[in-house]
């Protein structure tokens, strides 16, 4: 391994905020701030505002009113929904942590064959293709799913995995734990080995070492992941709807917004409440990290010292990892079976197998695949660029409002895709391109919608990565005469590489299966991404297999891209270190 910049500098004290305040002003920072603010204003705030103003309007007079918020507060259904959403989100964070911690710990801490493979497979649950994923989950874990049919035959019991709030917690944890896994792994890899060694010299080892030293140092990554899981579960409507749980806030908002021909303000009121609550919980999670410094100057050693495991330990570790992967990848196995099945109905396994569905998909819809790669790839790149810029402005910048950019960008998590889609049509349909077409019919608008919707994922990853980079490294470089932009390019970004990759992967993977905004914005099937094709297939009984096949293709594409970006990040990070 190459030596790190820090290695030549020795241990430097992290810069205090006070020091930074006296640095000379940077005009580039103001420009960056203005550009990001403009982007968020144009592609998030304005479109959303054009739609949610209904929440504040008196329906008879059109004037301003808060009566709808009063209705929200005094309605039992919404109070119950709010409490349910809160409970489910908290429990999902707990369960997702139980899944992610062992995977992250074993693969970063020990010499482990196929660590990258485990980390790649660990991302796949994020890619739960709409509809197809739901059917596959039902066929495996539903009341008449494989597991319960077998349990019923053998022991005459039936476990309601997919029912009620506990079902939501189960599915959400399996679905979103990769947020924690990815960010935690990135964080663990950045920990200064010297810290661990000092602790060992002082006599700490085993679990105590992990609990007192390793985990606290990896806190930025964990908090980034956990807050994402919390907010995402709080705002998610797909899973509760798939399990037919309606007494939660996001499904309530969705059901009201999507009623044909009714402008019920309560739906938008709930959207506003969701946005406010997301920002609030983000602020609370930032309190958890406040006043502490996670930056370390040692880099390039690949983080923690890797141990060899004894034979017994290895067996145990492999068993745990295998069990967890089997659980979280079960839906994808179900999806694979579904894509190969002739008919699968009320039986543990399909009646027969065929590859006809794949033949149909490749014959009818290969353009979906290229479109998805382009759209999700571009969206991921935009997100990483924006995420890094915002993280730098917040953590290193001196503009007072920078934190608000962070909150603003994160509020995108709480905006239902449909609201964003309608807002885009409302805002951009009147804008004509040079060739006379409407801006809203240009495929780039889908990319922007995807980028805005997935920006929070990349932003949290980038912030966590930057929190672990010591500002003293940058100051050292600046003292040696490097300009700000050069410092960012040569010092900061290479040190953040792991976090950037994690950010790109989460944005890219989830953008590849986004449907709700896409469904609003796609204007011709030639421009449509894969999720749209999946939707089209999954609306008919004969299309179920083909939809599943398209889902598997999505999973493979995202899996391969994830593997590639892991490899690029590892190699790139290593090479760029001087």
């Amino acid at each position: 391994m190459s030596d790190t910049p820090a290695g030549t500098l020795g241990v430097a004290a992290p810069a205090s905020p006070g020091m930074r305040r006296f640095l000379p002003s940077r005009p580039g920072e103001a420009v960056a701030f203005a550009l990001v603010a403009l982007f968020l204003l144009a592609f998030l705030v304005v479109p959303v505002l054009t739609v949610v103003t209904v929440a504040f309007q008196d329906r008879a007079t059109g004037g301003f009113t808060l009566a709808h918020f009063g209705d929200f507060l005094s309605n039992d259904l919404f109070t119950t929904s709010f409490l349910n959403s809160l409970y489910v989100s908290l429990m999902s964070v707990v369960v997702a942590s139980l899944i992610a911690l062992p995977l992250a710990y074993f693969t970063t801490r020990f010499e482990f064959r196929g660590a990258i493979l485990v980390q790649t497979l660990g991302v796949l649950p994020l890619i739960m293709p709409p509809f197809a994923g739901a059917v596959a989950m039902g066929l495996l874990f539903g009341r008449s799913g494989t597991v319960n049919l077998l349990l019923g035959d053998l022991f005459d019991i039936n476990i309601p995995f997919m029912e009620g709030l506990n079902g939501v917690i189960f599915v959400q944890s399996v679905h979103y734990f990769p947020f924690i896994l990815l960010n935690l792994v990135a964080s663990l890899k950045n920990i200064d080995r010297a810290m661990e060694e000092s602790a060992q010299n002082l006599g700490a080892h085993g679990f105590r070492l992990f609990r007192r030293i390793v985990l606290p140092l990896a806190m930025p990554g964990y908090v980034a992941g956990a807050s994402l899981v919390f907010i995402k579960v709080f705002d998610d409507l797909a899973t509760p709807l798939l399990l037919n749980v309606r007494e939660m806030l996001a499904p309530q908002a969705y059901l009201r917004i999507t009623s044909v021909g009714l402008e019920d303000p309560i739906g938008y009121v709930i959207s506003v409440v969701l946005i406010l609550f997301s920002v609030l919980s983000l602020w609370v999670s930032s309190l958890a990290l406040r006043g502490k410094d996670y930056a370390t100057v040692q880099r390039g050693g690949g983080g923690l010292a890797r141990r060899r495991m004894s034979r017994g330990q290895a067996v145990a570790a492999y068993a745990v990892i295998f069990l967890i992967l089997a659980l979280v990848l079960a839906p994808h196995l179900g999806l694979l079976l579904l894509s190969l099945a002739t008919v699968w109905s009320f039986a543990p396994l399909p009646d027969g197998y065929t590859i006809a569905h794949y033949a149909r998909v490749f014959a009818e819809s290969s353009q979906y695949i290229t479109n998805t790669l382009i759209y999700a790839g571009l969206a991921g790149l935009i997100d990483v660029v924006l995420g890094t810029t915002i993280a730098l402005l917040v953590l290193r910048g001196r503009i007072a409002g920078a934190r608000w950019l962070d909150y603003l960008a994160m509020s995108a998590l709480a905006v239902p895709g449909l609201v964003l889609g309608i807002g885009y049509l409302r805002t951009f349909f009147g804008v004509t391109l040079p060739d006379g077409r409407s801006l809203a019919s240009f495929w780039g608008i889908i990319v922007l919608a995807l980028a805005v919707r997935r920006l929070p994922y990349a932003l949290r990853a980038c912030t966590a990565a930057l929190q672990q980079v010591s500002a003293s490294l940058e100051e050292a470089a600046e003292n040696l005469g490097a300009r700000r932009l050069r410092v960012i390019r040569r010092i900061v970004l290479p040190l953040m590489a792991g976090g950037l990759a994690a950010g790109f992967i989460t944005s890219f993977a989830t953008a590849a299966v986004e449907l709700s905004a896409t469904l609003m914005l796609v204007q011709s099937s030639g421009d449509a991404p894969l999720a749209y094709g999946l939707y089209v297939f999954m609306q008919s009984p004969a299309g179920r297999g083909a939809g599943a096949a398209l889902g598997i293709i999505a999973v493979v594409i995202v899996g391969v891209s994830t593997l590639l970006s892991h490899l690029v990040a590892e190699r790139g990070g290593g090479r760029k270190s001087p």
Partner: protein
Amino acid sequence: MRSVLARPGGTVLGRRALGALAVFAAGAARAQTPAGAGKVSVVTSFSNDVTGPFKRAFEAARPGMTLDIQNRNTTAGVRFVQETRSNNAVDLFWASAPDAFEVLKSAGLLEAYRPTAQGIPERIGPYTINDPDGFVTGFAASGYGIMWNERYMRANRLPEPKEWSDLARPVYHDHVIITAPSRSGTTHLTIETILQGEGWEKGWGTVKGFSGNLRQITERSFGVPDAVNSGQVGIGIVIDFFAFSAQGAGFPVKFVYPSVTTVVPANIAVVKNAPNPAGARAFIDFLLSPQGQEILLEPTIRRLPVNPAVYAKAPQGYPNPFTGSIGMPSLHFDVVESGKRYAVVDSLYDQTIGTNLDALKRATKAIGEVETRLARRDNAAARALLAEARSLIDAMPVTQAEAASDEVTGAFTGRAGSPRQAELEQRWAAFAREKYQAAAAKAAEAARAAG
């Protein structure tokens, strides 16, 4: 290849002649109007399995025309047409849900067109096939009914249901699935038909009867056949073609039309300021031509043609609403009343059944258990208590007259002087919850009386 009768530049054939030609030259309409060339953009909620065969046949019959299909769910489709009205690029809106067309029509977003096709009657069951003002054209019919998974029924030893009231029997508890009427225009019409066919009070009793046995209320209509096809739930209340096309795809499902049912048209309409109005009309005419109507019989589509003559080509046992074998020809469907209370009925279902499903199910289950015991050993006192419990369940917060009154309907349109929608809904939900709890208490009392 096909000859082109009409040269570009002049309308050689009138539209009527064109329609007649389409009727008589079944197999391929050999005419092409010059203005009808080019791309026809269609926003539709139908899947590829439905649109694909029509697209291929239409493009073959009309060389030079292409059908550009944009799949969106009904909500997104309606919103799309609404939001892009300033610079409309859509020629046709093609979907099942009658309410979606109603919204577009009342927003002035549709263009009237009376198709030229011959031999299509005015009514199918109690409904007119076409919009009286000519804005919406029915091209196929579908009936509502009960679909079930045979393997599921066998494994759970369930008898095959025939009528809506069968589904209220205790044996089906927790085995039924439906879409909320607020989410599906066709479910709405089914509920409305039951209410009009049986009367407001008795009708709600029937609806609450089977609703007490629901496992789930899904938010999208295709969620129901999906759950039945995969065997997650045994019995679904669905529109017929979901069941027929599932059978066509090989799933072990069966379907029956109850005697009180609706046969409702699926529709198509020309969007206002369509970029290619001639092409749009040509496609509607094609849909209604014998060739287009026959495509409906394909195994993956299986909808009921609106042209009675086409049934001669249908396979054995194909349901035919024109022979009176399904639907309720006798029912007089009051369109005005139905239209007035549209949102009210949806909201009543959502508030009294949707959000209170658990309480309703508990009460229904308790009543069912006592009933099963009474079937073995009768007890008059317990029977009386059960009747009380049932009437508590059936109670509705508003009467038929109130449901269509300006005060109540105004809450859903934001009329000044009406209560706000959220206020009303909270009241209705609380009303139902209280009644269901009382019903469960009565059922417990009946259980004690039964000994």
